[in-house]
């Protein structure tokens, strides 16, 4: 029972990381209809930037915060320099460019920091929290708490502020957003910035678990894709629920199905993507748009 509870909690923590990266995918998708294949590599670079800032003498938390802010700016720049100019290009062109960006960022990290793994320390102490019969590591609890707070802030941004409402409007019906005076490009710029910042958070949270290296996000991005597909690519709630579910299922399957184990559990993600597309292509929370004439 304790094993089960521990796997569940660990699954939630992994799931929280997948959820933040899945949310990043969903934000860029909802605002511009583009799946950012380079999202994971951008997150990996953010983790490296944190490491670099620490190597230059900054403490971990300020380094992480600066890296997240820089990532926001980088995401906005990516929108302005690549995504916006391609807004009328064919889907294939955009996908090719983003896959190109994926490879470029991956190589850039290798070039700047080599392919030898580095250690990025965890944001949380090595302590354990004792809750009755089972204990939770501070890292697990911390990840869940940090992602929870970030989700709450995003919810407040989108549901209670004017800018948040304008961002949703610009993503939903850009032609009409212009007619109420919203600057659509600025809103999309902010959307891509937030996506990159969320990605950065996932990179910084996952790096201590998988070690810092240019391919560290490969597994994570697959799980994030599974989460976004399962939840529905256009659903913010879906990305979060999808992320948590993927994290939990991945951990439970890895533990209780011996022939899968930790090595094969990435298959879980692929099966989830395949199964969702086969059975419910819009995902759990994605919706077909209801439009009456």
């Amino acid at each position, binding site marked *: 029972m304790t094993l089960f509870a521990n796997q569940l909690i660990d699954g939630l923590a992994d799931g929280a990381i997948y959820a933040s990266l899945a949310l990043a995918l969903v934000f860029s998708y909802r605002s511009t209809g583009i799946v950012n294949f380079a999202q994971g590599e951008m997150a990996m670079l953010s983790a490296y930037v944190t490491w670099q800032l620490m190597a230059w003498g900054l403490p971990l938390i300020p380094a992480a915060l600066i890296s997240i802010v820089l990532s926001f700016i980088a995401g906005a720049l990516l929108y302005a320099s690549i995504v916006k100019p391609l807004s009328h290009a064919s889907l294939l062109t955009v996908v090719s460019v983003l896959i190109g960006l994926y490879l470029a960022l991956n190589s850039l990290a290798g070039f700047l920091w080599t392919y030898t793994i580095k250690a990025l320390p965890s944001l949380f102490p090595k302590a354990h929290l004792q809750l009755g019969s089972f204990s939770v590591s501070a890292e697990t609890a911390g990840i869940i708490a940090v992602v929870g707070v970030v989700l709450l802030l995003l919810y407040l941004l989108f549901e209670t502020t004017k800018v948040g*409402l304008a961002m949703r409007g610009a993503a939903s019906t850009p032609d009409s957003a212009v007619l109420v005076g919203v600057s659509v490009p600025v809103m999309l710029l902010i959307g891509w910035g937030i996506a990159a910042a969320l990605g950065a958070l996932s990179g910084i949270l996952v790096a201590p678990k998988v070690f810092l290296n240019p391919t560290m996000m490969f597994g994570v991005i697959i799980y994030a894709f599974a989460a976004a597909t399962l939840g529905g690519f256009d659903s913010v709630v879906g990305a979060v629920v999808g992320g948590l579910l993927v994290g939990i299922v991945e951990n439970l399957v890895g533990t209780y199905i011996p022939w899968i184990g930790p090595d094969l559990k990435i298959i879980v993600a692929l099966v989830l993507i395949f199964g969702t597309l086969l059975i419910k292509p819009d995902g759990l929370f994605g919706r077909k748009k209801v439009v009456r004439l």
Partner: protein
Amino acid sequence: MSLLTIEGLQAGYGERSVLHDIDLAISERKIQVVLGANGAGKTTLLRAISGTTTRSGTIMFDGKRIDRLSARKVVASGVAHVPQGRGTFADLTVDENIRLGAYLRSSAEARQDRERWLTYFPRLQERLSQQAGSLSGGEQQMLAIARALMLRPRLLLLDEPSLGLAPIITQSLFKTLAAIREETGMTMLIVEQSANLALEVADSGVVLESGRIVLRDSAQNLAGNDEVRRIYLGYE
């Protein structure tokens, strides 16, 4: 004094020119209707004014040139455009649509106006938390108009408000528009195919044919004009 004066307007989409040499003026507090067949350039005329298509020529609004402004700046100067097909934010609730209409204004003003316009459109009041995409056609049209009114515009551009609506709903919609003009003195430019109802509330009108104005007169005279009656009002 005209609120809107258009001189020598050309407009179109990319290379394709739709409007040729349009002159038009609307006085403050008046309702003008634009009649014309499909493809005559009615929608393009409204889009040229609101800056959502390429245009050249002079458009003066309230004494200032707006023909070089971006669509956002035109909106900010006090021109609200209710596009054809209504253009509500289908994913947002009715209330969010209305609030977003007041994006350029202070929240305190917006709250006041919201109450005021909801009294004109009681159906919306009942559906505030419903997704806009799930409303009926008539309700969506009301929502699109309420959203445009939230800007507190001086000029309201309406593109075929009757499109897809039952005659009885169109009738009540035009009544509401007339009441709004009565109370606020808002100037309106309405593009319509449903000519008889539009001419009932309008002060004047123009007829567009292949991108040119071929007739302009008072609404009363247009409603009595044989050719207009034959082509747009369905009388033989």
